[in-house]
């Protein structure tokens, strides 16, 4: 049985569940950033920002949506699968945990792309920015950061964390992390600057700014080297974590 076909089966299976869980959940996940974005920038209707001025805001929200998608859709789901026995059960049916996880990753990439494209289309239309260009930047950013971010999320699943703990930590840090990325500026201490850039929201934010630079042929001083280093760290975390993803629940007998 090929890995691709098995992964596709899991993708279809998860997709049915997500759709039956209710479209409201999916819509809400994209409506919240739209509402926050428009509310925070309501004065843009009177004082329209140029696209260069607006881009950092868009990049910060893209970062928020992207990290949210992978944190809740990959790290959380895998921990839930581990805790309720799904991962263990289907590993023995399919012969490997790989298709169970790959199907989930594929699902999150597809749903994340739809979310980010929808968010960008709405805010571009509302504020009168070039829709296709911005959707292009957003989706390219999402695709570029998805593999390293997945690596980071897989490493989270190897920790003996309960979903409630991870949920609390994520909710505490996600929005502040977005605003820190947007407003903090550069720190003279190189080590501290690197630590900040190592956080996933900043990583996506900076990647989005770089991709915007490339696609708009501008420059705002960010270096690709730093982003590649962070990507590599995330990927190494993911590769080393793969074998360490536990099949047995850390809290319940299944």
């Amino acid at each position, binding site marked *: 049985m090929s890995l691709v076909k098995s992964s596709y*089966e899991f993708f279809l299976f998860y997709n*049915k569940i997500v759709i*039956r869980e209710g479209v409201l959940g999916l819509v809400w996940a994209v409506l919240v950033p739209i509402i926050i974005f428009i509310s925070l920038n309501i004065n843009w209707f009177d004082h329209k920002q140029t696209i260069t001025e607006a881009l950092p805001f868009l990049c910060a929200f893209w970062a928020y949506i992207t990290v949210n998608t992978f944190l809740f859709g990959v790290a959380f789901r895998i921990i839930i699968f581990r805790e309720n026995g799904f991962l263990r059960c289907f590993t023995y*049916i*399919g012969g490997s945990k790989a298709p169970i996880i790959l199907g989930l990753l594929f699902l999150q990439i597809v749903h994340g792309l739809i979310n980010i494209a929808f968010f960008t289309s709405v805010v571009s239309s509302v504020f009168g920015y070039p829709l296709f260009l911005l959707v292009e930047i957003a989706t390219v950013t999402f695709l570029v950061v998805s593999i390293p971010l997945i690596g980071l999320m897989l490493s989270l699943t190897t920790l003996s964390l309960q979903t409630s703990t991870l949920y609390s930590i994520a909710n505490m840090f996600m929005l502040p992390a977005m605003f820190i990325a947007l407003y903090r500026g550069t720190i003279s201490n190189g080590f501290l600057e690197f630590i900040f850039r190592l956080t996933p929201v900043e990583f996506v934010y900076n990647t989005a700014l770089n991709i915007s630079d490339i696609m708009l042929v501008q420059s705002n001083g960010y270096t690709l080297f730093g982003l590649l280093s962070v990507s590599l760290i995330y990927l190494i975390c993911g590769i080393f974590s793969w074998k360490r993803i536990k099949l*047995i629940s850390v809290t319940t007998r299944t």
Partner: protein
Amino acid sequence: MITIENLSFTYPKADRPALQNMSIRFETGLVNVLIGLNGAGKTTLFDIISGLYKPQHGHITNLPHIQDMLYQIQGTFLSALVKGKEYIRLIYNISGKKFINDENYIIEQMNLKSDREKELLKDLWNKKIGQMSVGERRWLYVITLTQLKRSLYIFDEPTSGVDPSSRIKIYKRIEELSQMEGNVIILSTHHLHDLKFITCKINVLHKGSILFEGDYQSFISLYGSENPDIAFDNCINNLNQEVITEAQVYA
């Protein structure tokens, strides 16, 4: 045949071992049944056989690769929103079996013999897991899993919550698997009366060690009761060859 010798295992932070110098042979051509009190170490043993835990002492020989092993775990694990046919489709498609979206084809392919089983599958085909009873879910789960070809099958309480009629059919289906050449079937259960009707070897696991190995007749003869529940009670209380009446046990 799978052989386990002097197996010991203690969970981290536990004050006593879950399995202690346990030796056991799981044979082909019959159903190897593991019985024991709750917490006796049955699931721990299954987890070790399936490679989820490494034994701290002792060794296991003739274990197949994970891809040639099927381990049915106790817990419920599926979204309540999934339909019966979608569940069968997933299991078939990830394990290389052909799935056709036609309940009659699947009934024929599963070789369901009784009318009741055929009706049950038709009933569950479009029913969501959340709308099924616990027994119906378990029946669907086990019957679908028994369609897969493996050399080692581990069933952890496959008949828990299942009605007597379906229980017999599940046991018969598992017994059929055991008749296929080279297959090793290991099963745990608390329904001891049903074991009378299948070719099996009973292994009583108690406090991490095997107290008894043998067929059903030897078990009830040795522990002095036609009622296997009482024989089991005698066994774990080390009361072999004493006839204890049902009234005495319940008193």
